[in-house]
């Protein structure tokens, strides 16, 4: 039954023009990214540098930078209102008057929003590639497809977090604030800031282990993604820039891609599950 909710969710995004706006915005960013790369590409320089210079990496860097910033915020914002909005407008009592369970509503919302964000993220990649190809710049197609997969999955994690928020709260305002809060928390890695404050005894804390600071720093989804991606493909490290923070030097084991996968799995599953539990027990 959740499939019917998911299909409705995608159809809603078309009826409510969210898909159009998302696709439009991401296509524009893609066009700009593709143009920056294609316009700066000079075959003469590439030739002079011989095999040392990889123009495709440059292209990937631009796209990864844009997608890192845009895909998560778009995903979490597209997802955060889906359930709480239905709850406040009385749509939920109609849906739950049909043979749907609350779990169907949560699962269907996640699946529907993953489909929508996948379309939107794909648009960014497609538009950028299209423009770059038109400008006759080389396209690293396989790597590009791999990164598309990475960002579709990364966006899905934020859809999951956003849906968890949407399921957990009863007010649309609270959901929106929480969603923005989560995003900023991750981007600015507030968890490391908090750990530093604890180390300095800001709240009267004592004996907080200094050794765990680099551990705390690796627990955000951006750091985890960086660790996974750069572990497999180190050349792209520069594209992460600010996102994910400084790569760890002290506790290298935590920067292993495998650990990053676990951290990402945590963010994909736990907030959604907690939100679902709250929703399951809530009076509508």
């Amino acid at each position: 039954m959740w499939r019917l909710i998911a299909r409705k969710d995608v159809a809603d995004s078309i009826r409510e023009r969210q898909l159009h706006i998302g696709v439009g915005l991401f296509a524009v960013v893609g066009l700009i990214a593709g143009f920056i790369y294609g316009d700066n590409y000079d075959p003469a320089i590439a030739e002079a540098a011989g095999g040392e210079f990889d123009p495709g990496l440059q292209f990937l860097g631009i796209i990864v930078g844009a997608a890192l910033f845009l895909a998560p915020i778009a995903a979490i914002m597209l997802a955060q209102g889906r359930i709480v909005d239905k709850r406040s407008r009385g749509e939920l009592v109609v849906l739950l008057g049909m043979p749907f369970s609350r779990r169907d509503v949560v699962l269907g919302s996640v699946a529907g929003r993953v489909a929508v964000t996948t379309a939107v993220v794909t648009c960014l990649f497609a538009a950028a590639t299209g423009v770059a190809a038109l400008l006759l710049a080389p396209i690293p197609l396989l790597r590009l497809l791999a990164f598309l997969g990475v960002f579709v999955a990364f966006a899905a994690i934020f859809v999951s977090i956003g849906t968890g928020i949407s399921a957990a709260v009863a007010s649309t305002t609270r959901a929106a604030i929480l969603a923005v809060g989560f995003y900023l928390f991750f981007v600015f890695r507030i968890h490391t800031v908090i750990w530093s404050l604890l180390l300095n005894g800001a709240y009267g804390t004592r004996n907080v282990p200094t050794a765990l600071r680099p551990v705390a720093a690796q627990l955000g989804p951006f750091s985890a993604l960086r660790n996974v991606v750069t572990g497999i493909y180190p050349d792209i490290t520069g594209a992460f820039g600010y996102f994910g923070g400084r790569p760890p030097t002290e506790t290298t084991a935590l920067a292993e891609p495998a650990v990053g996968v676990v951290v990402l799995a945590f963010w994909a599953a736990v907030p959604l599950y907690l939100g679902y539990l709250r929703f399951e027990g809530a009076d509508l």
Partner: protein
Amino acid sequence: MAAIELRDVTKSFGSVTALDGLDLEIREGEVFGFLGPNGAGKSTTIDILLDYVRPTSGEARVFGYDTQETPTAIRERVGILPDGYGALGRMTGREQLEFTIEARRGREDPDAILERVGLAGDGDRQVNTYSKGMAQRLMLGMALVGDPELLILDEPTTGLDPAGARMMREIVDEAVDRGATVFFSSHILGQVEAVADRVGILYEGDLVAVDSIDNLRHTSGATGGVTVTLDAVPEQLDGAITGIDGVNSVTVDTDDSGQPVVDATCTAPAKGNVVKACFDVGADVRDVDTREASLEDLFVSYTGGDA
């Protein structure tokens, strides 16, 4: 098996007790009217049946299914017109019906339902733009999809015009004819009286009475009365009538044409005695009019006049 079974159901919202130890059993095939003033707990009861709200204690079953353990089994068998419903996103009326038919695995034609509930021609409009009455008609239509065994209607006539209210009654009758059970809440007494086999009066979270309307009339002591129009009022009349067994109160007034009118509120057997007393004291009786206790009287007698 009972269609609906509530056992000692209590529901508190914070410090407010919406339902206080509610016991209720509704048989299959009956039309049950759930009556009570605003805030009595009618919607809370319905919300518990559909598992929108969880009881604080007690047990609720629909066709034997526990509302919390197997809500979807219940939702498959129930057509619901809930309180505080909204449109499904930006769907049109027809899209909402199509979605409902798919979800309930019905075989209905959306246009036939639109026509049935008086919305032919409005199917292509967004439900967002419907008036309250139109949305109510659409929700009724959606509740009928898949011929549910039980219709639960929360204040079904809210926002409906007289034609819509009549349509609602026809829909209830048709559902009963095919063997369905109907459970509906209302604070409009006349409508309950018109369709319900049994009535439950809910007051401050407590079921104060459950019975057929006739029996409720009988046992509540809520009485009818008789109005006698006379030529003139003899002096002893008032005393003669108040002395009759079963008479609660007597008023003497004049009607529009200046004729004296004696009005006695009394039980049914006392009505004849009132008329006889008028003759006995020598009055010339011009007209006699009797009335039954209205549901309103019943309601007031059960809820202490707080209707």
